[in-house]
C-alpha cells in the first residue's frame, strides 16, 4: 500500500510481524485441527497484550491449544492447575525462612513466567482467583510488602468449564472484564475429528514443533500492533458501540471504558495479523464477539429468542461510519 513510502522502517517491521504471525498460526494449526479462527483470535489476544479465557467442556483441546501456542511462541510456560485448596501463595510464591542464612528468601511462584495456563480457574476459591487476576492486571506481584515485576511478555490463558458443577466459583463479571477475550473451542468437525483419531499423539507433536518467535520478537510484534493506524471514523464507531450498549435495554449494563480499549487494541492486533497497516471495520467486527460477549449481561431472553449474541446484535445495530 501507499503508506509504505512514508514510513518504510515501520512498515517493514510490520510486514515481518505479519509474516511471523502467519507462520505461527500455520504451525499451531498443524496440531489444533479445524480451529483456524480460534487460533487467530488467540494470537490476536496475545499480540494485543491481553489475556485469554477459554470456556468449554473438558477434552476439546483447551490445554493443548495453550501448550501449542507457548511452544510456537517460544515462551517459557507454566501450568497452574486450579483446585479448591490452591492458595494465593501457590501461585505468587512465598517468602520462606532460610535457616542457614537466617533470612527470609522469596521463592517465586509459577506466575513468574511469560506464559501461564491457569487450568480450570473456576475451581479455586475467589481469594486465589483474585490473586491471579490482580497479577494479570498489574503485571506485577506484591508479596510481604515487596513488589516484583512479572516478566514481559506476560500472557495468561485461563480455562473454565462452563457446566455447573458443585464446588466451583465461576468468575464474576468484574473479573471477566480483565480478560481481553473469551473464546469457545467447540467440537471439531468430522474431517478434523477423523484426522485427530488417525494422527499422532498431540503431545509428541507439540514437542517437535519449532518455535517461530521468542519473547523479544513477540515484544516487537506487540509494539508494531500498538502503532497500527485507527481512523477517526472507527474511533467514532467504537464510541457508538459503547454508547449503544449503555443505552440499549437489551443489556443490564453497558461496556466499560476498558471494554472500549479492549475492542480498539484487539482490532489493531487483528489488523496486524491480517497484514493491514490500518484498522478496517472488519477487524473490529471479527474480534467483537470474543471481546464483548463476556463483558455484557443480556437482559431478558429477547436476544436468545432471536438466536443472537450480544456481539451480533451490536454489529447489526450500530451503523458503520
Amino acid at each position, binding site marked *: *500500500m*501507499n*503508506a509504505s513510502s*512514508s514510513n518504510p522502517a515501520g512498515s517493514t517491521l510490520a510486514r515481518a510481524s505479519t509474516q511471523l504471525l502467519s507462520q505461527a498460526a500455520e504451525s499451531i494449526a498443524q496440531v489444533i485441527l479445524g480451529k483456524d479462527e480460534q487460533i487467530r483470535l488467540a494470537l490476536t489476544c496475545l499480540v494485543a497484550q491481553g489475556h485469554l479465557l477459554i470456556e468449554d467442556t473438558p477434552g476439546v483441546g483447551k490445554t493443548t491449544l495453550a501448550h501449542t501456542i507457548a511452544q510456537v511462541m517460544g515462551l517459557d510456560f507454566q501450568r497452574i492447575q486450579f483446585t479448591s485448596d490452591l492458595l494465593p501463595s501457590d501461585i505468587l510464591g512465598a517468602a520462606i525462612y532460610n535457616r542457614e542464612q537466617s533470612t527470609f528468601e522469596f521463592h517465586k511462584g509459577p506466575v513468574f513466567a511469560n506464559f501461564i495456563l491457569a487450568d480450570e480457574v473456576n475451581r479455586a476459591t475467589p481469594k486465589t482467583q483474585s490473586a491471579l487476576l490482580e497479577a494479570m492486571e498489574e503485571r506485577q506481584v506484591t508479596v510481604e510488602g515487596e513488589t516484583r515485576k512479572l516478566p514481559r511478555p506476560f500472557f495468561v490463558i485461563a480455562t473454565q468449564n462452563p457446566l455447573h458443577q458443585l464446588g466451583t466459583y465461576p468468575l464474576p463479571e468484574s473479573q471477566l472484564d480483565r480478560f481481553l477475550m473469551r473464546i469457545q473451542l467447540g467440537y471439531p468437525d468430522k474431517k478434523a475429528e477423523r484426522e485427530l483419531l488417525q494422527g499422532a499423539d498431540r503431545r509428541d507433536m507439540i514437542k517437535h514443533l519449532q518455535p517461530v518467535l521468542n519473547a523479544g520478537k513477540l515484544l516487537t510484534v506487540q509494539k508494531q500492533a500498538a502503532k497500527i*493506524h485507527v*481512523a477517526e*471514523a*472507527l474511533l467514532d464507531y467504537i464510541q457508538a458501540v459503547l454508547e449503544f450498549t449503555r443505552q440499549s435495554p437489551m443489556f443490564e449494563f453497558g461496556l466499560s471504558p476498558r471494554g472500549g480499549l479492549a475492542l480498539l487494541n484487539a482490532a489493531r492486533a487483528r489488523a496486524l495479523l491480517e497484514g493491514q*497497516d*490500518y*484498522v*478496517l*471495520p*472488519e477487524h473490529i*467486527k471479527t474480534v467483537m464477539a470474543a471481546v464483548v460477549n463476556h463483558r455484557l449481561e443480556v437482559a431478558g431472553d429477547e436476544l436468545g429468542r432471536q438466536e443472537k449474541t450480544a456481539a451480533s446484535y451490536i*454489529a*447489526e*445495530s*450500530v*451503523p*458503520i461510519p
Partner: protein
Amino acid sequence: MAIADHKLTPVLIGIHLVALPMYSRLPPYILLTMAVLTLWSLLIIAGRARQPKAWLRIVLAGVVIVALLASYGTVFGQEPGIAMLLMLSFLKLFEMKARRDVLLIIFVGYFLVATHFFHSQSPWIAAYVFVVVIYLTSLLIVFSDRLGSTDFKTRMTMSARMVLQAIPLMLVLFVLFPRIQGPLWSLPDDAKSATTGVGDEMSPGSINDLISSSAVAFRVQFKGEPPAPKDLYWRGLVLSHYDGKTWRRDDAPEDLQPELSAVSAAAQPVEYAVMLEPHGRKWLYSLESLVSLEGGYSVTRELQVLTKKEIISVFSYAMTSSLRSRNRSLSAQEREKNLLLPQDFNEKSVTLARRLRMAAGDDAEYADSILNYFNTETFSYTLSPPLLGDNAMDDFIFNTRAGFCEHYSSAFVYLMRAAGVPARVVVGYQGGTLNPLDDYMIVRQSDAHAWAEIWLADKGWMRADPTSAVSPDRIDFGILGAGLEAGRMPFMLASNNKWLLQLRYTADSLNHNWNKWVVGFNEKKQQALFESLGIEDINKSTLFSWMVVAMTLMGGVVAWWVFRQGERKSKRDVASYYYSLFCRKLERAGLMKQPSESPDEFLVRIVQHFPHLKDKASLITRQYQQMRYGGEADDGHKKRLVLAVKQFRAR
C-alpha cells in the same frame, strides 16, 4: 423500493399532527371516517390486516366522497376541500408502493398544515405549525436515500436545523413580499368564520351571554395616557328601532355627514390604534366622539364606522377621538326615528314617563330624574334577570326590577322616547384592562356593554348610562368590580392567583405583539419600514424585484459557501461521497447496503448477487477503505475512486 408497513407509523402520526387543530371543527362523519381509516392502518402496521385491493380502495374513495357530501353538501370550497385532502392522505396510506407515495403525503401535509392560518393567525397556531413542519421534514429525512436509519432525536435535530436555516429566506419573503389589501386570493363564502362579540341586535340576554367569555375583543394602544375608565365607552353600533322586544339598527342614509362640535376648549384629542380580533361583522369600534380616522371606512351620521367586508382576520386601524366633542346631527327625520315606540304597550311606563317629565324643568333634568329613579328605587344589577312578559318595560320597571345593562339602557331609552326626548341605544364595550407588562389595553368580550344617548337641544347627543346609576362600580371598576355573581365570570379573569395573572398577561402581550408586528404587517407598515430606512415611495413592482434580487443574492451566498465547503472537503469526505454514490447505484439495481454493514461485508454480498462486478466493486471498496480508514491517501486513490465510481454500472 417498497415501503415496509411498520414504517408507516410515523407517517400516520404525521397526518394526525397535521389534522389535530381541525378535529374540533371537522364534522362527525369525517371524524368517523378518519377514525376507521386510522384503525385500519394500525391493523395493517401491526400485520393483522392486508393492504386493501384496488377495487376496495375505489370503494373507500367513494365512501369518503359520500361522507364529504353528507357533511358539507359539496366537495368544493375551502372546508370540504381541506377535509377531502385530509381523507385522501389517509387513503394514500393504503397504496404505499414506492417512496414517492410517502413523499406525496408529506407534501400534502405541508399544504394542509398551512391551511390552519385560514382560521387563526395566532402565535400559538404559528408555533404549532412550525413544530409540525419540523416533524414533516424529519419524515422526509426518514424516507430519504441515505439517512433512513438515524434515530428519532437525530432526525428531529437535523430537521429543526434545516427549518431554522430557512428562516433568513422566510424573513426576506416576509418583509419584501408586496402586500395586497385583503386576502391574496378571494376565498369562497364559507371561509367567513362565525360571528362573535356584540351583535347588531339587542334583546334581553344578548349581552349578558358575552359576560362569561374572557376572549379578547380588541387591543388598544394609546398615544399618551389612556383616558379614565369612566370615559372608555367603545361605541360599536347605534340601535334606534324598537319593536317591543328587540332593538335593531336603523342607520341614516350614508350620504349625510355627521356634524360635530367641540364643547370644551380644553378638549385634548386621544389618538389610539386598535387591533380588532376577527368578529365576522362589518363595523369597527371607536371612542366617543370620533374625530378622524385613517383609511377608507364610511362613517355614518351616528358616528358608526363601517367596513366594506367582514372582519375575518386581525384588523388594525388608527383613530383620533375627542372626548369632549358632541355629535350634533339630527334631522327632522332622525328626530322622528328616535322617538318611535311600539303603540299600545307598556302603558304604566308611559304614564310614569309623562309624570316625571312634567315634574322636570327640561329634558336634561328629566334624564337625571330617570337615572335618579333607577338609583333610588329597588333596582338591582344582575346577570340572571327574570324573564319579562309582553309588556316588557312595565314588567321590568314595576315588577322584576332586576336586569343587566341591556335592560337598563333599553328601559331608559324607552322612558326618554315616551316623554318626547329623542334617544337611542348604543352597544359596544365599556372599560378595558391595561396589561401591566406592556403598553396596551385589553378589551374583552366580558366588557360588552349597552348604554343610551339622548338628544338635548343645546348640547347635541349626550351619553347617558343608566347602568352607572344602578351599579356605579361597573363603570369605575369594570365588570369584575361590579359585584356580579362570581360563578358567571370567566374563571381566568376572576382568579386572584398572581402567578396565573402574570402568565395570562405575558401570553396576551405576546399575542398583541404578534398581531402588531407579524399579522398586522400590512402595506402601510411595510411602507413605513422602508421610509424609516430612508426609502420613500416604494411600489409593488420595485418591492418584487428587490425580493427577487435578495433571494438570488442569498442563493448565491449559499451556493458559494457550499462550493467552498466542497473545495475544502478532505479526501475522506470525497471518499464517503463517491462510495455512497456507488451504493446508490447498487441500490437502484436492487442491492441495498445496510448501515451496519462494513464495506467488505457489502462487497461479499455484491459479488454474490453480481459476480461479474467483482473486480470493479473490489477496486472501489479498496480505494474507499484506504481513503476512509487508512492513515494516508493521495490523489491517486482519489482519482481511481472517482473514475471507478463514475464508470460503475450496476446492471
